């Protein structure tokens, strides 16, 4: 390993999703120098990949793209993409030392014009993780059309080093000699905004995800209805048919001890209702059925949004799905207990969307020396003073923003980020060097 390069910032923010971005902006606008570290290739986290957002149906991109653009351009914010914080030790009240690994992108971002010639030239096709596997991408690729930075990436795992991309690149920005860089950061405060992971429904075999092509996750549906969507229309992946009967299976991986998650994921009811409304607009003839246990439309304007979906004709069935089976033609049979009538019923649908829940992000587990950072039983970052200072963690000077503490919708994540930034600014003010 090479000697790390020593760098210094007032604050380290880990994670550049909507919560981390908001925290960084708040700190930077107050005059502090911020290092924003993101493991992915783009800013914007999960929100930038969404279609529209509840309960106003604003387009997600319309909120995130200008925000990430502001972050990327801010004179007080430095962004490290493809980077991970591997270790943090607290030396004194206002001296945290963090080790950061910045992986090579094999593309000089400043020179790349995102012309996509490398993408066309690349002979390797793999599944596109930004489209949640719905379509493929190349090994030399632009992550997605509104990514920031908008520049090519070489997926070195799958690259055959054939050199085709290098030959067509008009700006010679592709560089296979790039190496992993190591940094040692000295900073006065740390904000964790590492977000959440989505439940992988492969853990519930009776839903058939992974076996039945027309059983998809809500994130895949989100991509199907997003403006930067893969098919440019809504269709079921099995045979490309435009679906007429779409089912939503709520609480997939939530409120379910059998998969180790007794929590309610807090967002699935609302995003499913939102998708249902968008689908009613895109496919006016389609029947949308939402199978639910309880509808949790608790936030500002949420209940009204739920009632609006009902009046649009979305069907709500109080019932938990027991099993999904596939017919020869790819149609699905959903077996469920109709809670209102107390009987087991079956219904046929063209497509089933599993409304997958929120899981903790395991990557921050061991960053801090001596296990000083505490977690709750489901591995979300523990809040030391939930009522008085929700963004304080077990380590003084380390704060937490957004879904790293548990499920949260976008408005709540943004308020939580405002709160974490507020605590961090206070900490910086109180721990100024004399």
């Amino acid at each position, binding site marked *: 390993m090479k000697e790390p390069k020593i760098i210094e910032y007032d604050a380290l923010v880990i994670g550049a999703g909507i919560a981390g971005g908001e925290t960084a902006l708040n700190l930077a606008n107050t005059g502090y120098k911020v290092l924003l570290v993101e493991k992915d290739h783009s800013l914007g986290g999960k929100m930038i990949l969404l279609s529209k957002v509840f309960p106003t149906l604003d*387009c997600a991109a319309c*909120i995130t793209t200008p925000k990430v*653009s502001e972050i990327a351009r801010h004179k007080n914010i430095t962004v490290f993409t493809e980077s991970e914080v591997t270790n943090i030790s607290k030396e004194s009240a206002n001296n945290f030392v963090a080790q950061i690994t910045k992986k090579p992108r094999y593309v000089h971002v400043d020179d790349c014009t995102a012309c996509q010639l490398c993408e066309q030239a690349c002979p390797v096709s793999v599944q596109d993780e930004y489209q949640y596997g719905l379509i493929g991408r190349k090994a030399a690729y632009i992550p997605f059309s*509104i990514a920031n930075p908008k520049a090519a990436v070489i997926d070195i795992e799958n690259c055959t080093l054939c050199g085709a991309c290098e030959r067509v690149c008009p700006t010679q920005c592709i560089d296979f000699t790039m190496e992993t860089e190591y940094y040692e950061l000295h900073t006065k405060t740390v904000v964790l905004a590492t977000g959440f992971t989505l439940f992988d429904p492969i853990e519930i075999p009776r839903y058939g995800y992974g076996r039945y092509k027309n059983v998809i996750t809500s994130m895949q549906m989100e991509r199907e209805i997003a403006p930067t969507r893969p098919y440019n229309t809504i269709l079921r992946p099995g045979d490309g048919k435009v679906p007429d009967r779409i089912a939503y299976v709520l609480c997939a991986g939530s409120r379910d001890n059998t998969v180790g998650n007794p929590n309610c994921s807090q967002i699935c009811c609302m995003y499913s209702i939102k998708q249902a409304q968008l689908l009613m607009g895109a496919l006016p003839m389609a029947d949308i059925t939402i199978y639910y246990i309880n509808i*949790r439309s608790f936030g500002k304007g949420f*209940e*009204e949004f739920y*009632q609006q979906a009902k009046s649009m004709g979305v069907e709500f069935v109080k019932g938990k799905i027991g099993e999904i089976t596939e017919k020869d033609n790819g149609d699905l049979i959903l077996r469920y207990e109709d809670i209102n009538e107390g009987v087991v019923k079956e219904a046929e649908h063209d497509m089933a969307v599993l409304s997958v829940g929120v899981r903790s992000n395991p990557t921050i587990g061991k960053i801090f020396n001596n296990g000083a950072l505490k977690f709750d039983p489901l591995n979300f970052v523990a809040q030391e003073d939930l009522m008085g200072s929700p963004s304080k963690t077990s380590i003084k000077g380390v704060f937490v923003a957004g879904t790293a503490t548990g499920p949260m919708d*976008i408005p709540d994540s943004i308020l*939580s980020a405002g709160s974490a930034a507020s605590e961090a600014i206070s900490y910086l003010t109180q721990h100024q060097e004399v």
Partner: protein
Amino acid sequence: MKERIGVYICHCGGNISDYVDVEKVRQAVQDDEGVVLAKTTVFACSDSNQTDMVNDIKEHNLDGVIVSSCSPKLHLTTFRDVTERGELNKYTYVHANIREQVSWAHSDDKIGATEKAIHVVKAAIAKSRYAKPLYPNQFEAEKTIAVIGAGIAGLKAAISLSDKNSNVVLIEKENRVGGHTATWGSLFMTDERGSELIDRIYSDLSQRENVFILTGSEVISSKGSIGNFTLKIRKKPQIAGDPVETMEINVGSIVVATGFEHYSPEEGEFAFAQNEAVITLPNFKQLVDESSGKVLEYNGKKIKNIAYVYCVGSRQTEGENKYCSRYCCTSVIHTAIETKKKFKGIQNIHLNRGIRTYGKQELLYAESLQMGDLYLQFNDDTPPEIRNEGKKTVVTVKDILSAGRELEMEVDLVVLVTGMVPRKDQSIGKMLKLPKGRDKFYNEVHMKLRPVETVIDGITIAGTCQGPKNISESVNSALSAATKSFSYVSKGTLETEPIVAEVDHEVCSWCGKCAEACPFDAIEKQEVNGKEVAVINTSVCKGCGMCTPVCPVDAIDLIGYTSEEMKSMIEVLA
């Protein structure tokens, strides 16, 4: 007159282009007088398009820029900043709203929407031809911040500001701080008592030198604007008979944290105020908290079977209060469990409309089920009925969880799970001109982009005055609001909006009508070149334009809204 205008027409990833033929709009405006560049773009606000715009401004030597996209409330500042990065004065930027007011409003009529979009963009071009570079003045901002309301949100906002070395005036109407939180017993999920939580925050706050706490005090008037608000405060006498004290304070920003009220059921609503055994959730919480002994008693009667009727005053299908009050499910289940643990023989029966213990609060619901609490669910159109049979209280409910079976039960106590409603006393909101949302709580500018800001510059909203929240959500909102208010004034200087009135001194022959119309006393009589004319004090003028229609000789215009500009826009739209 602008001669080199660049026009950008945004698809908004389909939000506009699904209903408006953006290419047709582009073609319709590209040859307009002064337009040298007309482009469509998938996302005008994206980083790559912003960079393109900056390059275009320089490369094509543009002197005016127009983006036709969403409402200016979202991204006017975004594009003003882009214009500035292109080294053009940001006030030469003109915005055209073709989403909220065209593509979405007319999504039922694509041809009509396209036609309207063309007119709207052409009107923006007309306005752009007149748009002048403007230069804001700097003025000194008062760095003290006022926080109105000393509940949990107000207290935490004050601490947060004090921590940032800001002076804070915390104003509370009641004689004590802590609001509703101080009245709660044990809190879910920490088991700390509400009063303990408030005590520890207050004892920290009360020691701080930069925080002035005014209890028993009301704001009775407000003057001024961001950077310089003057609040008049009336403080009730501490000792009866002492004179009422009034004082004035100058602050740069205001955090409004005036909180909520418990919904108060009407007489006869679920037998409230008619049957003694019917009480509200806050009263029940107090009863449980204050009672001791082995058995719970109310009005001298032993309590065993308790029915909780959910969503009283929330999720109403008719009239007001259509919203969910968010905290009540968790609050009542928590109290029901406490009651069962504290007293003997308690049976809890929850008559609900779907339990909303979101997130980690779900664990509480699971615990309650495990402890044997009974959950029955009713539909909004068949609410439970409560009647007296002699001395007994009987509840009937149609339980949809058992195929709509009608169940009847005798209970000792009925708890109406009342939700949160906005404060009846709206004087602060009226005084500060805060807009209210459809739920009648104060409204933020944008739930995701500017969640604690109001349309009134310099005033933020924190906690439940913006909508139902639990304690930690209120605190997050309070800290966000405090940071925002802090950022307004922390630099000590602010810029005035350069949109002010302008008098044509050639035409003006002082009559005083404009000065009479001005609500800010910004117009004075002065002698200019040997002639008495009206002169605008630009540091006081707020740019409302009230003076402009009253001038008998049409000598006053508002910059950016001159008759020339307005008439040229009207011509294009017609």
